[in-house]
């Protein structure tokens, strides 16, 4: 039993779910998550399963502390997201979420690159459905772009894997050496990890996902990328600076955003930047930091998307320019959202504080002064947007006389539990630290650390207060790297679809016209031929003048017997050839 890959339960659950009665599906969703968690708890560190497939030695499951730590939080958010979405009666979304969670777990425990690739692609398709399932024209387009980008990334991954296999003869998923194959694989992992300039799919698609879908989206894709980067590329210096750029990039773009879920999406990029930096640092402390921050990030970002989803659900609006003054109508949602906001901002007593400081400590131990300073700057920006700007302009700020509808109890239940976990980790960091891949010898609650954080965040609040007038939403969108494929898209559509289509249409029309003309000509060949031949006169002619008047095809048709005679003669000739000459 301990050798059953945890992904299997969720994937089989996805197949079973549509067969269950409608009322039982949400409960079954939770049951599958609980069974998966039970399986995870029984997995033994260091165990693996091998399989011979065609000519390859595969390792579909390989367990270590790194994969287990990510696995626990993946199953937790599946369960919490399942509770949040109990109200939802959409089997398609539930199935997609299960496949998405299952394939993400599959990636975590994949011991070889082939298994990884299969789950990787499955993840892309299932997650795209969570965007498409919103069933609006915008989400259809965003979901299609998302899918195309990820399928492209998957193709690059496959190319890298094949190259790697050709070079090394091994498909085992281990740390990569520098080389073209590794660069291709790194490209694909970076795309899923949303490292600029490969990040635009995230801010494009996540805000267009369904309310519950975005909760799952915020958890899996980028964090599986962090995991595979940690496993394959730990210690690559490039990632240190890529992560720092991400952390700042997300914050800068979040200032300009008007859509609350897009703003949160940019903060995913920013927070994943911390993890990528830690992976680049590559020390044991840093890998602990990346894992811990991924763990708490999944919980607090899930909570933030749940909060934003609750606002969208009850008001049907998601733009800052259309929201405001909801505090009195939605005090509970506000309180729960604020737990997520304090967590992401790294406030003492919340989860982000104990995980983010692990990353900063790892950078400090490597004496990366500029990196540490820039990550502090990203922390300032995070609190500015998620902790101050969003709550102020959604729940306070301009009064717009909105009449929000009721929020289902399951949404509250999901948010309460997720908030509880964020606080629990903040209060008892050992809950998190004991799950880390390496022993954590760090105490976050020192007077010095607490005071520097409080100073940093209090005076960020002061800056916000001074410039509050500049921070209100504006009815604009922000150009990002998706411009490079969205703007030329109509041109490429015209070249590759419209132009080709018109060429085919023209050829088809001409072919049909030709066929029609030939049919007409063949219906009366004599008349057709007579057009081009001289008329009969005293000196003779072709004798086709009568054909203009009357043409009887039977007159020129040979009897069937003639055709049979020809065929038989051919056979006789062939036979004779074989017998006498062959």
């Amino acid at each position, binding site marked *: 039993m301990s050798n059953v890959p945890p992904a299997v339960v969720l994937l089989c659950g996805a197949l079973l779910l549509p067969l269950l009665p409608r009322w039982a599906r949400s409960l079954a969703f939770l049951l599958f998550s609980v069974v998966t968690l039970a399986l995870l708890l029984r997995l033994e560190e260091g165990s693996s399963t091998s399989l011979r497939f065609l000519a390859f030695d595969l390792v579909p499951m390989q367990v270590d502390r790194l994969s287990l730590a990510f696995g626990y939080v993946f199953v937790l958010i599946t369960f919490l997201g399942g509770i949040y979405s109990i109200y939802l009666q959409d089997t398609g979304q539930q199935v997609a979420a299960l496949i998405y969670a299952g394939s993400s777990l599959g990636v975590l425990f994949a011991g070889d690159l082939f298994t990884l690739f299969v789950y990787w692609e499955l993840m892309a398709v299932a997650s795209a459905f969570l965007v498409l399932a919103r069933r609006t024209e915008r989400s259809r387009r965003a979901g299609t772009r998302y899918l195309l980008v990820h399928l492209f990334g998957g193709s690059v991954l496959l190319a890298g894997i094949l190259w790697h296999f050709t070079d090394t003869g091994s498909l085992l998923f281990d740390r990569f050496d520098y080389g073209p194959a590794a660069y291709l694989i790194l490209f694909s992992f970076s795309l899923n990890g949303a490292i600029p300039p490969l990040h635009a799919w995230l801010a494009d698609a996540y805000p267009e996902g369904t309310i519950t879908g975005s909760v799952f989206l915020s958890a899996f894709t980028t964090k599986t990328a962090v995991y595979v980067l940690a496993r394959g590329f730990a210690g690559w210096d490039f990632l240190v600076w890529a992560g720092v750029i991400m952390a700042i990039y997300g914050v800068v773009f979040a*200032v*300009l955003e008007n859509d609350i879920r897009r703003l949160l999406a940019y903060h995913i990029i920013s927070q994943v930047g911390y993890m990528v930096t830690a992976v680049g640092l590559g020390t044991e402390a840093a890998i602990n930091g990346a894992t811990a921050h991924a763990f708490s990030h999944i919980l607090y970002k899930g909570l933030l998307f749940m909060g934003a989803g609750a606002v969208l659900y009850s008001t049907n609006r998601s733009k800052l320019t259309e929201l405001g003054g909801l505090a009195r109508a939605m005090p509970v949602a506000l309180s729960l959202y604020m737990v997520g906001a304090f967590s992401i901002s790294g406030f003492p007593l919340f989860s982000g504080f104990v995980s983010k400081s692990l990353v900063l400590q790892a950078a400090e131990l490597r*004496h990366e002064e500029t990196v*540490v300073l820039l990550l502090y*700057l990203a922390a*300032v920006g995070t609190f500015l947007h998620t902790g101050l700007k969003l709550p102020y302009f959604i729940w306070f700020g301009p009064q717009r006389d909105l009449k929000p509808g009721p929020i289902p109890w399951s949404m509250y239940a999901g948010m309460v539990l997720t908030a509880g976990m964020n606080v629990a980790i903040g209060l008892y960091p050992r809950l998190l630290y004991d799950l880390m891949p390496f022993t954590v010898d760090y105490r976050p609650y020192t007077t010095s650390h607490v005071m520097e954080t409080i*100073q940093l965040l209090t005076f960020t609040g*002061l*800056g916000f207060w001074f410039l509050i007038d500049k921070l209100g939403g504006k009815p604009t969108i922000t150009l990002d790297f998706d411009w490079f494929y969205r703007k030329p898209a109509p041109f490429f559509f015209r070249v590759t679809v419209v132009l080709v289509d018109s060429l085919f249409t023209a050829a088809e029309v001409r072919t049909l016209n030709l066929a029609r003309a030939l049919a007409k000509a063949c219906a009366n060949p004599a008349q057709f031929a007579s057009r081009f031949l001289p008329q009969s006169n005293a000196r003779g002619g072709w004798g086709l003048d009568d054909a203009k008047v009357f043409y009887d095809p039977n007159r020129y048709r040979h009897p069937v017997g003639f055709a049979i005679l020809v065929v038989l003669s051919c056979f006789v000739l062939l036979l004779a050839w074989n017998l006498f000459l062959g």
Partner: protein
Amino acid sequence: MRRLPLMFVCGALVFFLGVDAVILGEVGHGGFWWSHVYGFFSLFGFLGCVATILASKFFGKKWLERRENYYDPKGLHE
């Protein structure tokens, strides 16, 4: 512009400087030179916040902000 009561800001600053004076005398905030400067994190928080907002707004106005229907000017996909 809304203003926080000046007293609160000054009080917070004095408090943090006081705390820094006590802490930095013993252990400091970390291993870098700036982690031993009194009130560094207060100043960094404030200036970082202002710089982030102003820089983003500058980039936005200069290059990045576009009308909402930029990718769909004819409103075909709404």
